[in-house]
């Protein structure tokens, strides 16, 4: 149901949400960098007002139910195609339950991170620039969320990519940061190119890239017969769109940029590389979910998601850097979301996006607080920090419980629902068993490495006494701990679900109304899974209970084992089991993805091609085409010079002489008295009047 005529002000509000941070960016851009307080407070205030507006939007949408949307398009510019049909490129606003929920999350998380940044970036050299980028980024993300079509999504998508690039390379004095920013930029570009191709193809076929039009086209089967390059059209387009998701959300095989992105400042990692930008890929996949489904791509997506989740989780096991563990865990959790898309768990996948954004932002902020206190990122030098940083420790415990999937926390609710849906699908369709197994294994690994992180950082005894003694005792500080504690509050499951698992199975609150998330967010069309297996309520129910029990057991097992091992030791497996050395070697090299890309793909394939193109350009094009043109132009110009000097100049001279002659006559009329001029003009006017009338 379109409510844009009922509530025309929603559009203005949505624009305000995105425009306020953008205004802050524009204004801050022109404020001299030494007004740090002004810049940071302006950024924070604008995002705060955005958050208030988006809260209002959410509260307005919430009672209306899930199939309500607000939609408006404006023509940005229009072109004429070959048959003189106007092809207009619209910009527009599309708000539905998913958008407003994401708006709410993004604005408040961004606000918390802004507040934290005023603590974390204090005293930095480019403090102001950081806030400028942060505002731009937030504006772009909010713009993406309210966009109504893929074109504007792409614009904001690229804007976010630019911000990510700038913020990864924020400490550009360090060589690693510069390289990492380039790597991130170039890697995501691969996905973006395919994304743009998909947009162009859709625009060409449908004349529109609007979400509503796409959904309608899929539901009416208008595109199902068409093919492109011999492949069914929807499959190709869906695959290309999914490649955009792969690039942005760091899925295998384009996951290599995200660990390097940790060169940026920690708040930006929290905002961009954990909470919002990487989730934008999943958001896109959810938006174009009907296309992916109609293109029969879900199995591929489920495989890629589960493989990503598993590989990243294994890589996280051996990391010694605090932020690297979190980076790999981000990839792993994004894999879960993509797995959720693949198993048609639309709602659960989006729920995991929201919950993950909250606890991962909180984890990154906590990591930032730890790093800022102890001045190192290496976990091997930490330990026992729970006494020095009690508030951070509390937040970390909450978030670790959430990400590991301990019951009563948000991660359990969302992750369990993805795994439950996957289990249900696998029961009906055997191809889905590998993703389910990988997913459950990853659940165990997640609990394991997160508990390892917690244990190595906070539990046990201090391993580097000198660093420990230098660490400041933490006191409750408004811009350091309040965002952390506020975010960690929302890791509780009750905010997202009234029952333990989010399916209304083990109820904490009796009314079904508490399952707001499940009712509020629904796919635009009913999924094929629902159509095929929707009748098996009993089975669905039981499999969810089983899945919940399994994942809870796995989580407890992982946490327990890990805490038991790592609260005392830093090394356990490599010293005991020799055969694990090979595995560790594989994991250290990150499955040789980087090696493959750099040494084989770039140096052996792209470089020769590049050299050949350069040779063509320099040797052939420059030498013959360009230089030949120049020589022709030279000879022509010398000819025209001769004509000019001898022919045209004499005419000009003649006109000058004649002007001089006549001016000598007319000069006598001017004697410099203004009144005489006026009188003359009056007389002239009188004569004219006499002649005309």
């Amino acid at each position: 149901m379109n409510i844009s005529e009922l509530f025309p002000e929603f559009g203005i509000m949505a624009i305000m949400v995105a425009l306020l941070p953008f205004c802050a960016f524009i204004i801050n851009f022109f404020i001299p960098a030494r007004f740090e307080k002004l810049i940071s407070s302006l950024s924070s205030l604008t995002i705060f007002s955005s958050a208030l507006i988006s809260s209002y939007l959410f509260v307005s949408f919430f009672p209306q139910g899930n199939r309500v949307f607000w939609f408006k398009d404006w023509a940005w510019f229009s072109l004429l195609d070959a048959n003189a049909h106007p092809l207009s490129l619209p910009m527009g606003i599309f708000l539905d339950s998913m958008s407003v929920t994401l708006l709410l999350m993004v604005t408040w998380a961004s606000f918390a991170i802004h507040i934290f940044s005023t603590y974390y970036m204090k005293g930095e050299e480019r403090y102001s620039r950081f806030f400028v980028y942060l505002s731009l980024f937030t504006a772009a993300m909010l713009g993406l969320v309210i966009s109504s079509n893929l074109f504007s999504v792409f614009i904001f998508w690229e804007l976010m990519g630019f911000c990510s690039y700038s913020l990864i390379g924020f400490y550009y004095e360090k060589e690693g940061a510069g390289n990492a920013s380039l790597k991130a930029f170039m890697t995501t570009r691969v996905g973006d190119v395919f994304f743009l191709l998909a947009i162009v193809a859709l625009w060409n076929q449908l004349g529109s890239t609007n979400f509503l039009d796409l959904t309608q086209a899929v539901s009416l089967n208008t595109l199902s017969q068409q093919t492109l390059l011999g492949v069914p059209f929807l499959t190709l387009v869906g695959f290309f769109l999914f490649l955009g998701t792969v690039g942005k959300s760091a899925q295998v095989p384009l996951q290599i940029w995200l660990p390097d992105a940790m060169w940026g400042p920690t708040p930006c990692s929290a905002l961009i590389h954990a909470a919002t930008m990487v989730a934008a890929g999943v958001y896109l996949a959810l938006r174009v979910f009907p296309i992916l489904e109609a293109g029969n791509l879900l199995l591929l997506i489920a495989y890629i998601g589960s493989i990503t989740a598993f590989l990243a989780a294994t890589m996280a096991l051996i990391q010694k850097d605090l932020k690297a563990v979190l980076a790999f865990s981000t990839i792993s959790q994004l894999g879960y979301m993509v797995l959720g898309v693949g198993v048609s768990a639309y709602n659960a996948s989006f729920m995991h996006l929201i919950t993950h954004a909250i606890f991962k932002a909180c984890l990154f902020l906590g990591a930032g607080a730890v790093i800022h206190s102890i001045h190192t990122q290496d976990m091997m030098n930490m330990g026992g920090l729970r006494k020095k940083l009690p508030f951070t420790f509390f937040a970390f415990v909450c978030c670790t419980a959430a990400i590991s999937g301990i019951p009563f926390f948000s991660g359990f609710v969302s992750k369990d629902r993805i795994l439950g849906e996957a289990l249900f699908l696998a029961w009906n369709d055997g191809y889905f068993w590998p993703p389910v197994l990988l997913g459950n294994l990853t659940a165990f690994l997640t609990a394991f490495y997160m508990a390892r992180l917690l244990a190595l950082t906070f539990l046990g005894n201090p391993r580097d006494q000198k660093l420990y003694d230098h660490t400041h005792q933490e006191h409750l500080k408004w811009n350091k701990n309040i965002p952390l504690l506020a975010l960690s509050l929302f890791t509780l499951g009750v905010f997202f679900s009234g029952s333990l698992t989010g399916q209304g199975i083990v109820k904490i609150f009796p009314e079904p109304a508490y399952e707001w998330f499940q009712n509020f967010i629904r796919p635009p069309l009913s999924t094929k899974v629902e159509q095929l297996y929707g009748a098996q309520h009993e089975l669905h129910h039981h499999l969810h209970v089983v899945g919940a029990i399994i994942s809870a057991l796995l989580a407890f097992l992982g946490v327990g084992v890990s805490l038991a091992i790592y609260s005392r030791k830093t090394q356990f497996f490599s010293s005991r089991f020799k055969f694990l050395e090979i595995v560790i070697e594989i994991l250290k090299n990150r499955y040789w993805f980087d090696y493959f890309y750099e040494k084989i793909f770039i140096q052996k394939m792209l470089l020769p091609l590049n050299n050949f193109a350069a040779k063509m350009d320099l040797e052939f094009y420059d030498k013959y085409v360009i230089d030949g043109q120049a020589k022709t132009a030279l000879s022509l110009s010398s000819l025209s010079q001769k004509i000019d000097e001898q022919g045209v100049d004499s005419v000009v001279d003649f006109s000058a002489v004649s002007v001089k002659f006549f001016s000598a006559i007319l000069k006598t009329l001017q004697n410099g008295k203004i009144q005489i001029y006026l009188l003359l003009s009056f007389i002239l006017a009188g004569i004219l009047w006499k002649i005309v009338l």
Partner: protein
Amino acid sequence: MMEKTLLLYQLLSCFLFAAGIFLIFARNHLIALFIGLELLLNASALSFATYTYAFSLPKEGYLFPIFIIVIAAAEAAVALAIAIRFYQNKESSHVADATVLQG
């Protein structure tokens, strides 16, 4: 009543116009010339307003006095700035001292 007022104001605007012309021709002071110009503008504004009122013409007639006032304000600012600048350069307000462009 209204006919008399209309005639009165029309004659008044004629006198204003004539006085403006008189001032322009009789004075050599830059600012006095400017005063004459203001009288001319006011004469036309008064005439417009009176006619529009007397014959119930469309309300656009009242816009002319307003825009005349706007133009006069802009003109006053620029003209007097030029007068001041002229005085700074030449130490005189005499119109005949503006001889830079004189042939």
